[in-house]
């Protein structure tokens, strides 16, 4: 088998990446996951900016998880400036993170992955054969967006997330609307799971020992706050304080990538839905656990293709967990709150789970509240190395199975897509350097 495979601008992923494979006489000469997204230099951009503007700038790193970027950014800014947020703000932020997690997962499951499982090049041709699936996807995507928009203003580049809380606090009517949306989404999610279970067998079988990294706080399935934990296939867990984050996500630049790669214990690591699932299975909402059982997922699950399935499980968790929080807020009543002012100036750091994994922002501010330096570590960056290693392990297997070139291409693309890589995001930060 002699083959040169180059997939330029791989489709149905966020951002631009290429897959390069050279096979000679059945031997792999080169496998490369190449990141070609244009670099954008956000760390430089926020320098000299007032703390009230920073989150709105870093939100522009990524249009898919801009809520996550905004929340992480204001959280780091609050840490740097000694701004203490209220409990209400924290709950609202948690609901908001759920909404984005849900929103982004739905986009990934339906628009990016489903076509592969249904054997279509995109979601649009499905309008012919599986119209209700497409309409359901659009409906769910829009409802999820509305859910987030009630709290964040816009979900792409939020208008209401500011250091200290929310520039406009939702009213009781708003919360009732969120509840209504969630209740409308639950049956749609059930149908989604039904659809998913009919195509489970289309997901390739492939396992590789991997180090999974996620937030952990021993109380909940954490998105907003926690320490960093990794779990190996053996079940061995290690906990790291947030400040050690940079050390356990050793970053390195590679020549073929505008994004940087990371590694910890093994030569690569994975973050995202499957990593969270493996680390925090016990804290999933019972409804989500039921679904996991039905779909046959137990921790530690080491097939990266099942990241999509883990996302579906998280969707269920996000719905029920949010519903409980919203109902509690409605019952206890929502209060108008003043936005607290800075009490100090200095450095601050925040880690938050966003749809694709752990996101870290770190800033330093001067006495007037202007930004002196910034650093962000993006989840997809942490996965790039794992994608590369997975491809290296998966390719020989595919060659042994003697699959056609087209099949090989498709399978590699599916592997990349399973990670839901957000490449546009991952190219904007690299080096920590405070001036």
């Amino acid at each position, binding site marked *: 088998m002699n083959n040169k495979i180059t997939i330029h601008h791989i489709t149905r992923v966020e951002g631009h990446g290429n897959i390069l494979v050279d096979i000679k006489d059945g031997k792999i000469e080169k496998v490369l996951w190449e990141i070609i997204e244009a670099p954008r230099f956000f760390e430089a951009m926020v320098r000299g900016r007032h703390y009230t503007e920073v989150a709105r700038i870093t939100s522009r790193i990524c*249009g898919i998880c801009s809520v996550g970027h905004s929340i992480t950014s204001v959280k780091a800014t609050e840490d740097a400036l000694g701004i203490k947020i209220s409990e209400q703000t924290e709950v609202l932020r948690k609901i908001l993170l759920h909404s984005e997690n849900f929103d982004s997962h739905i986009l990934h499951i339906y628009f990016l992955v489903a076509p592969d499982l249904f054997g279509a090049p995109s979601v649009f041709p499905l309008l012919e054969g599986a119209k209700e699936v497409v309409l359901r996807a659009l409906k769910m995507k829009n409802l999820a967006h509305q859910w987030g928009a009630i709290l964040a203003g816009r979900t792409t580049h939020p208008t209401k997330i500011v250091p200290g809380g929310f520039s406009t606090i939702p009213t009781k009517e708003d919360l009732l609307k969120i509840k209504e949306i969630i209740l409308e989404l639950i049956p749609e999610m059930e149908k989604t799971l039904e659809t998913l279970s009919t195509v489970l067998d289309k997901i390739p079988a492939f396992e590789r020992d991997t180090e999974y990294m996620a937030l952990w706080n021993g109380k909940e399935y954490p998105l907003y706050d926690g320490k960093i934990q990794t779990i190996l296939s053996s079940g061995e867990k290690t906990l790291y304080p947030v400040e050690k984050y940079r050390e356990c996500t050793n970053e390195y630049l590679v020549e073929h990538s505008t994004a940087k790669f990371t590694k910890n214990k093994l030569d690569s690591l994975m973050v995202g839905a499957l990593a969270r699932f493996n680390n925090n299975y016990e804290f999933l909402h019972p409804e989500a656990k039921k679904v996991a059982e039905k779909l046959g997922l137990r921790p530690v699950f080491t097939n990266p293709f099942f990241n999509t399935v883990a996302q579906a499980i998280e969707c269920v968790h996000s719905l029920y967990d949010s519903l409980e929080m919203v109902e509690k807020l409605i019952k206890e009543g929502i209060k108008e709150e003043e936005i607290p002012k800075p009490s100090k100036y200095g450095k601050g750091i925040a880690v938050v789970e966003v749809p694709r994994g752990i996101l870290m922002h770190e800033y330093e501010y001067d006495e007037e509240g202007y930004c002196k330096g910034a650093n962000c570590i993006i989840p997809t960056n942490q996965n790039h190395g794992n994608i590369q290693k997975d491809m290296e392990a998966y390719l020989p297997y595919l060659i042994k199975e003697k699959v056609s070139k087209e099949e090989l291409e498709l399978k590699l693309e599916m592997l990349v897509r399973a990670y839901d890589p957000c490449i546009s995001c991952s190219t904007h930060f*690299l080096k920590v350097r405070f001036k």
Partner: protein
Amino acid sequence: MKKKIAFFDFTCCEGCQVELTNLGADKFAGLLNLVEFVEFREVMSEKTGETIDISFIEGSFSREKDRERLIKIRERSKIVVAYGSCATLGGINALKHRKEGWKEFVYGDANFEILNSSKALPISSVIKVDYCLHGCPINREEFLKMAIDLVMDKEPLIPNYPVCVQCKVNETVCRYLLNECCLGLVARAGCGAPCPKDGIPCEACRGFVDNPNLEALKEVIKDKKLQEKLYLFTSNQMEEKDEQ
């Protein structure tokens, strides 16, 4: 026959595409009544060889190697719309021009070919752009209106009045009445003024109206550091004005 439309992206966050996926089933299906999507990398694997009726381009032009791709798109398209402020103005990407040594700052001393990036410029700096749909991100309703107009062969309406007009329609309390500053006075409307409405200032993400009164703005916003706001999304436009 349905018009063929396509979406392309360059240096950007892809948020404008995401906004399209938020249209909802009714509007999306409605749009598909009028048009056929022929290329949309983020959600489609299909590619087309045929002429495209309308190409929507997102993202700014920030490195030489993208030039050829842009020229090819222009050749294949009857109408080119730059959508999103990255594409129409250079957008937030151009903010880096305000900073010395931006490349070294982010990527250290690494000097790989792939990192090469020049100034972030609007798409119109490379190819002829027929219409601009401003915004960071775009306003979905404005997109729909423009899409329908273009499909119907109608000259789309692009507002040339400031955001304040839409703020009034929303009956938002002006930021200045709250002793804060805002760029809505010089920013091109069309977004529906969501920022002041939600409690944050307008930062002119859609660029300026044709004749912004920047001298007056500098009298209204006296603080030099606050005046830096004028470079947030409108760095390229300001550079032009500063040169004059």
